[in-house]
């Protein structure tokens, strides 16, 4: 079972992102479960969501406490909440930022992890460019696909195409593809280094 925890703020599409990832896994004939952790449902409040992916039926309904991957849609949460709780040293993390881990003040933290599994992607910028709005949810899943290979980019794009229509779908698809390429290049650079 592969477990993902999403962190973001109300209005950023945190819940939608988890559902899109579940839909992408479903399209690969796998079992998936996406669910939110609702607190007070306010725009801008910290929000978590979860996605489990497995080859067999998922029976549990407990929250994800030991994620295999973290997707952090809003870097301003980094020093507010305990975002990294339960992430193992083999874990993956993707942060929506134009800055590096060093610039984010996380250089000490990343030392314990496999460096090629902790990456940043400028998802809000890519969303602004391709979509016209800084909504990082679907975009980051393109990057997640390049980072983990847990779902293919095609499945992510198909899930976006099913959820949205018209220009919103096209913009998200273009931005997710760009995020995929960005993360793929970032990984290759790290692997070569």
């Amino acid at each position, binding site marked *: 079972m592969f477990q993902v925890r999403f962190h973001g703020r109300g209005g950023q599409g945190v819940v939608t992102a988890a559902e899109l990832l579940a839909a992408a896994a479903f399209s690969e004939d796998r079992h998936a479960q996406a*669910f939110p952790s609702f607190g007070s449902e306010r725009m801008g409040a910290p929000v978590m969501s979860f996605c489990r992916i497995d080859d067999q039926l998922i*029976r549990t*309904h407990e929250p994800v406490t030991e994620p295999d991957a973290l997707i952090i849609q809003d870097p301003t949460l980094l020093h507010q909440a305990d975002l990294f709780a339960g992430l193992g040293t083999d874990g993956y993390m993707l942060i929506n930022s134009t800055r590096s881990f060093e610039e984010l003040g996380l250089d000490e933290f990343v030392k314990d992890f496999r460096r090629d599994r902790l990456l940043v992607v400028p998802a809000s910028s890519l969303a602004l460019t391709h979509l016209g709005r800084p909504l990082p949810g679907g975009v980051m899943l393109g990057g997640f696909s390049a980072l983990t290979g847990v779902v293919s980019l095609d499945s992510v794009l198909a899930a976006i195409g099913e959820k949205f229509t018209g220009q919103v779908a096209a913009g998200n698809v273009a931005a997710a593809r760009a995020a995929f390429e960005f993360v793929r290049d970032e990984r290759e650079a790290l692997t070569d280094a």
Partner: protein
Amino acid sequence: MLKQIEGSRAVAEAVAMCRPRVICAYPITPQTHIVEALSAMVKTGELNAEFLNVESEFAAMSVAIGACAAGARAYTATASQGLLFMSEAVYNAAGLGLPIVMTVANRAIGAPINIWNDHSDSMSQRDAGWLQLFAETNQEALDLHIQAFRIAEEMSIPVMVCMDGFLLTHASERVDLPSPDQVDAFLPPYVPRQVLDPDDPVSIGAMVGPEAFTEVRYLAFERMRQALDVIRDVAIGFQAEFGRVSGGLIRPYLTDDAEVVVVALGSVLGTVKDAVDDLRAGGMRVGVLGITAFRPFPADAVREALDGTSRHVVVLERAIAPGTSGGIMTADIRMALASAGLGCRSVQHVSTVVAGLGGRAVTRRSLCAMLTDAADGSLEPLTFLDLDTGLVGRELDRMSATRRSGPSAENMLRDLGITASRIG
């Protein structure tokens, strides 16, 4: 057709395929997505029904009563305080014998106000005369609605389909959506036993005095017992039509040789099964008994499932019965095991474990630890799983230190340093 959708959406699709003529609802978290989806379907014409956006839950059930008495298939959904607010009409629907189907998206009852899951809402209506069916998964939630209309209309008794708020209603999972043709073949059009018809006037809801009240109640009581057979038969028929096991009275899992058996309702069963698999891998003989029909309570089926190898029965409860020895379902389980002349021979202990109140996560880790205690005989008769005894103790200290210690709920939140509540 297999689909990856939110539980609320799956239920809305299932309800729509049951072709209700009247849907009346007042939105309340975590039920809202179900009635939102249905109202959208009515608006687009996809579902040919009257959707009434009423001003309260009391009105929602009252409209359902009127619609059903006029011969229409009627549906509503609610949760928590909403269910309490409609309570008077809930009793009336059952007393009048009107086969309304209602989803309860299970949520805690205040105070303190809490939007998260437990079972205290539907349990509060335990004796209202409604059938209560509990869904373990979103697939079962979907399937139970289709079965519920069939059972309700066959018996002229209303049915509550209980599904865990957020845990199921807001979870996107894989479900197999039937086709409308399949549902039509399984669920015939509603033929009411009583109907308000201007061409053939009757009165429904007469005052009944001592001369017949006991008899009216007795008949309803007996009909409720007969519903056990109908629930079982409808589940068998459902399996024949749709090719999967869903609904019915009980769902045993690895109970045949189990020495410790957990009895539970709803979505926690999945997590319990995972815990049981873990413990079985270590050689522990544990099993699970899921209760799908909470009302009517399937006492005979429960006793048969538990009598054998099981020594210790652990009743996992998402609700409490204040002023008793613990849980609500524990009383039913104890009665089932001790019925006159039919006593269960093997079971030596029945324990209550209260878990998952107000959205507290029920984790596999805590369940495994609790079941290990049960197996070695150290589980107390009543346990509040993962209770923060320090937090309780500090509030007791504050209460003994000063008379005006203030509101306990706020004191305990402040103690934890929490300004806004969160799940987990």
